[in-house]
């Protein structure tokens, strides 16, 4: 009984220390990754917004029908914002996923 108690305590101590180390490592890596990934995603947002806004404006201006051109140009900002937000989310999630699993 005495031996069993000693072993149990030893096992518990080893397991507990390993779990603590593992959880600390995960927390540290998440906090390391988060600002990097946020910055990456912000860069991706800005680059993609410029692309979407420019590309869509060029397309709208190529339309020969005046009302279609006006309607198209009126939607450029909403479209570019929505698309760039999708890119932000994709970049952020992809970065966090690869970063915190290294």
């Amino acid at each position: 009984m005495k031996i069993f108690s000693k072993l149990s305590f030893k096992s518990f101590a080893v397991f507990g220390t390993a779990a603590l180390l593992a959880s600390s490592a995960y927390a540290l890596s998440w906090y390391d990754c988060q600002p990097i990934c946020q910055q990456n995603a912000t860069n991706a947002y800005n680059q993609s917004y410029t692309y979407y806004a420019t590309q869509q404006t060029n397309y709208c201006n190529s339309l020969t029908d005046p009302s279609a051109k006006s309607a198209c140009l009126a939607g450029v900002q909403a479209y570019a914002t929505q698309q760039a937000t999708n890119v932000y989310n994709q970049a952020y999630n992809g970065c966090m996923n690869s970063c915190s699993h290294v």
Partner: protein
Amino acid sequence: MRHTVLAVMLASCLVPMAAHAAPAPAPCDLLDQQMLTALNLADAATKVEHKAIAATAQAPANRLDMCTFTPRVGTGSSLSVMRLPLAKKVPPGKPICTDNSAEKFGLATCNVTFKDSILTVSLVSRRAGFETLNAALRSNFERLFTPGR
């Protein structure tokens, strides 16, 4: 009492099944399975959004209908379809595609006027593999939306 509980349990199972069985709303339906398969999005999750567009001096208030396809596993690429309704019919146009690659990701977009709307299909992909997906986007977009095909 037991029947009531069973009925509630059955209803709670059937409601999500009915929602799952309902067809994906437009504009998701504008793309076909062949195109989604070519872009590795055959089993993608879809998300539909509507954005209001305020009236301007040149154009009345309008709205954007958007559908985004994202992979259920991983974050490799995504595809979105945007439809902007037009007040009057315009002649169908020729598809126009552009692309732009950044350091870590590639962006590609195809536009066309189609059935009283402007359609824009956009691909976002990791830089690795972007060229293949971009080629698939262009060929499938032309197949689906070139007038007379």
